[in-house]
Every structure is written in C-alpha cells, then in structure tokens.
C-alpha cells in the first residue's frame, strides 16, 4: 500500500517556483533542526525526522504546513531519544500560552 506522503508520480498541479519569505518561527524551526543534527551533537538525524513526518495521519499531514510537520517531528524525536520528557514539554507549552507567545 502507498503511504500517504509518498505522492511522487501522482497527478498534481503546476509547481510553484517563486521564492517566498519565511516567518521567524519557521526560521527558528530550521535553526533547531540544524543545531540538533549537527555532527557535534547528533541528537536527531534527518532520517528520523522524515520517519516521524511520514508517520503523521493523512488528515494531519495535509493540514500541517511544511515547518509545522518539521516541528512535530523534532518534538517526537526528542521524546523518543529521551532528550526531553512529555511533562517538560507540556509545562513549557503552557507557559507559552500564558505569555500569548504561541
């Protein structure tokens, strides 16, 4: 069976080739990925990132933007590797909501 993300070769619209601006949070997600996967740390591999993105359900995969999928996968890998705990993450996320900093 074809995985939902494996959509190469399917009929699709025209490819958008225009450059576009990235929001600051998107740049931060990119920086997080680079820092975590740096050879001196190796807290995350790009292959692990991809596996976790591909494990998203079809509905979530389609709803999330590119960097939302990255963020989801980074969090998953850090939990799987024991770098952060779910409790720590939950508390930090609650702080962010209180600051209106979501």
């Amino acid at each position, binding site marked *: 069976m074809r995985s939902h993300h*494996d959509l*190469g*070769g399917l009929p699709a619209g025209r490819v958008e080739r225009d450059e576009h601006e990235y929001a600051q949070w998107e740049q931060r997600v990119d920086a997080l990925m680079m820092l975590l996967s740096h050879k001196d740390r190796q807290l995350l591999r790009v*292959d*692990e990132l*991809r*596996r976790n993105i591909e494990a998203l359900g079809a509905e979530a995969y389609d709803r999330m933007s590119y960097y939302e999928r990255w963020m989801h996968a980074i969090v998953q890998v850090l939990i799987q590797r024991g770098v952060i705990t779910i409790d720590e993450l939950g508390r930090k996320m609650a702080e962010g909501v209180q600051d209106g900093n979501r």
Partner: protein
Amino acid sequence: MGTADAIAPRFRAGDRVRVRAAYPPGHLRTPHYCRGRVGVVERLCGAFANPEELAYNRSGLPAQPLYRVRFRAADLWSDYAENGEDVVEIEIYQHWLEQAA
C-alpha cells in the same frame, strides 16, 4: 565510507534491474511508483548507511551501494502521453534491486 563496512556492489552501469515490489512499513527511500518496474543502471553513486535503519537511530551499516537507475517514463506510467523518449532517474539502494531478464 570505508570499504570494510560496505556491501560489495552487485550491479554495473548498463545492467537491467527490477525494483522489488515490496511494501513494508517504515521509512523507505524507494518511491512507490517505481516498485516492480524495470530500469537500467546509469551509475553507481557510492555506498551509504541505510536510511531505513538510520530512521530508527541505528547505524545503517554495513553501507548499501546506491545506484542511479534510469526508467522510461512510459514504463512507469502506462498512459504517459508526452515524449516517448522521456526518462526518469531515481536513486535506489542495492537491497531494493534484483537482476532483470
């Protein structure tokens, strides 16, 4: 990648190969649309740790030879209506390839 921890290449440029029609779960770098299809080895790209294993934070060693395989677009999509000479090149790991007749 040292040769000591790499699997020896089984194919050479020009060899006809078939992509295994396998559908295991996990992180696969072999696109669904080329599985079961026949192409020709265009070149050996080197040997690399197996991403299917790296995806689970394992070593991926011994390294797998990686090939660039050329397919006729019409062999991938039976209703392909563009130029009949069009080709698609896909990089595929050796463990996904078998000799084609």
